[in-house]
C-alpha cells in the first residue's frame, strides 16, 4: 500500500486523532494526538491490510520554542509482509509529559521507551520497567533536551565524586613498596 493511502485509512478510522499528514522525499509522517496512541498502534499492527509488524525505531524530539507542544515521540513502523512504511508522531506537551507505552503491541520497544525517558524525561504510562537505561539512576536532568548544556552539568555526577573521594582516602597507602 502507498504510504499516503495508509495515512488516509488511519484518518478514516481515527478522524479526531489525526492532526497532520506530511510527505518529504517519499516518506510520509502522520501527526496524532497522544491520547489514544495505544489504540492507534494496535490498529496499525493488527489490521490485515496494514500489518505494520516491525517497529523500526522510537525516539523523542524536543522542539523547544519552535512548536506549541514541546515534545514529539516518533514511531517508525514497517511491514515486512507488505513492504510499506509509516512514520507516526505523537505530540506531547511540556506540562503533561505522559504518554501510553506501546510495549503491549511491540515488545522490542521496551528499551527505546526507556531511552526516551532517559534522554527527554517523557514518562511512558504502563511501561513494565520504567528505569533509565544509559545513564545512572540518580542522574540529574535529561541530556537530549535542547536546554541541557552541551558540555554537561557544572556539578560532577555523585557516583564520580564518590570515586574521587575514595581515591583521596587510598592515597595514604603506598602500593609500590
Amino acid at each position, binding site marked *: 500500500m502507498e504510504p499516503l493511502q495508509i495515512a488516509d485509512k488511519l484518518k478514516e478510522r481515527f478522524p479526531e486523532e489525526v492532526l497532520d499528514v506530511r510527505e*518529504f*522525499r517519499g516518506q510520509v509522517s502522520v501527526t496524532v494526538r497522544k491520547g489514544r496512541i495505544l489504540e492507534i498502534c494496535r490498529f496499525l499492527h493488527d489490521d490485515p491490510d496494514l500489518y505494520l509488524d516491525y517497529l*523500526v525505531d522510537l525516539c523523542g524530539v524536543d522542539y523547544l520554542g519552535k512548536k506549541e507542544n514541546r515534545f514529539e515521540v516518533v514511531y517508525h513502523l514497517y511491514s515486512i509482509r507488505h513492504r510499506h512504511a509509516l512514520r507516526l508522531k505523537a505530540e506531547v506537551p511540556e506540562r503533561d509529559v505522559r504518554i501510553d507505552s506501546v510495549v503491549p503491541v*511491540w515488545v522490542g520497544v521496551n528499551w527505546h521507551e526507556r531511552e526516551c525517558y532517559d534522554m527527554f524525561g517523557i514518562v511512558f504510562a504502563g511501561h513494565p520497567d520504567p528505569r533509565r*537505561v544509559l545513564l545512572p539512576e540518580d542522574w540529574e536532568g535529561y541530556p*537530549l533536551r535542547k536546554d541541557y548544556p552541551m558540555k554537561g552539568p557544572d556539578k560532577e555526577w555523585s557516583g564520580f565524586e564518590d570515586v574521587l573521594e575514595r581515591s583521596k582516602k587510598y592515597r595514604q597507602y603506598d602500593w609500590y613498596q
Partner: protein
Amino acid sequence: MDELEKSFETKELTINLGPQHPATHGVLRLVLHLNGETIVKCTPHVGYLHRGVEKLGENRTYFAALPLTDRLDYISSMNNNVGYVNAVEKLFGIEAPDRAKYIRTMVAEMGRISSHIVWLGTHVLDIGATTPFLLSMAQRERILDLFEMVCGARLTVSYPRVGGVRNDISQEFLDKLYEFVLEFPSHMDTFETLVTENRIWMERTVDIGIISAEEAVNWGLTGGTLRGSGVDYDVRKYFPYDAYDKVEFDVPVGKKGDCYDRYLVRIGEMRQANRIIKQCIENLPAGPIMADVPKFTLPPKDLVLKDMEHLIHQFILITKGPTVPEGELYVGTEVPKGELGFYFVSDGTGKPYRMRVRSPSFIHASVLPRLSEGGLIADVIANIGTIDIVLGECDR
C-alpha cells in the same frame, strides 16, 4: 535430620557477570539470578560507553559528524560511514556517481567480512575453541591492511564522504583485493571444517536460545539475528542503496532460530559478501568519485589549495554547513550487526536539529533476558556471542 536437610537447602543466588568480562564482548553487565545452574532472571545493564553521539551530532555540521559514526560500531566502522553518508545524501537530495557507489559497496562488504570474522573468532573462543580465533584474526588482518592501503587508517576509517568517497582506489589495491577474494572461500572451508560439524560446538549451540520468526520481528531484531529465525528481511534487498541493486547475491536464512542457525546464516553471509566484492571489482566503472553539486559537496582538495573560489567554497561549507531543505528523513542500511538507521530532523540550517541513531546492538542486548531465562548459565555465553553485539554502538 532436620539440621542436615537445612544445610543442603538450595536458595536463589545472584551473580554479577561483567562489565569487565572477556565473554561479554565489551562492557555489558548482566545480573543473573540463579536457581542451581538455571537462570531465573537476567537483567542487562548498559550505558558504560555512552558518549552522547546524538547530542554531539546536533552540534556539528553534517560533514563534521562523520567521524563520530566510526566510533559507534568500532569493529566495522566502514559500514557505519556508508550508512551515515547514504542518509545524509538522501536528505540533501544528491546522488553519488557510479564509481563511488561501487567502491562504497566493495569496502562495505569488506567491512562485513572483517566484522563477521571477529564475531566468528570470539564466539567460538567463548565456547572453548582457540584455533579458529587465531586463523580468523589472520584473515581480518589482511582486510585491515587493505583498508590502510585505500585510506591510511585501519580501524576508524572515515573513508566515504557525502557525495562520494575521499580518494580513488589504485590498481595495486584492486589486485591485492582480488587475490584475497579468490583465496577467501578456501579459508572459509577451513573454518567450517573446524567448527560447523564439530560435536562440542553443536552440543553447545543447537536448540539454544530459540526465538520464533514472529517473535523475532515483534522484538525488532534485524540482521543475522533475525534471519536465523527464517525472516528474509535484509535492507540491502528491501531498500537497495549504493550498488546493491546491480550485484547478485543471496540472503541466507535459517529455519529454527537457534544459535546454530544464526551461526550458519552469518557464515553464509560472509561467502555472499565475498561474491559481492568479486562482482564489484569485475564491473567497477570508470568516472568521477565525487558528485559535482557545489551547494552540497566539498570541492576537490587540490583545487582548494590552488585557487581562491574553491577555498571560499570549502570555507563556507565547513564553517556554516550547507543549506539543507527542511524536513525529516529516516534511512536504514544493513551493517554486519543488523539495521543501522539514521533519522534526521532538519530545520534548514547546516546542522541537524535532531540526529537519531537506531542501533541494532541496543535492541539485541535487550533481547538477552528473553533468550537466556530458563536456560543454563553456560548458555548465556553462547547467547551473547550469537546476537553479535558491540557495546560502542549499543550505548552510542
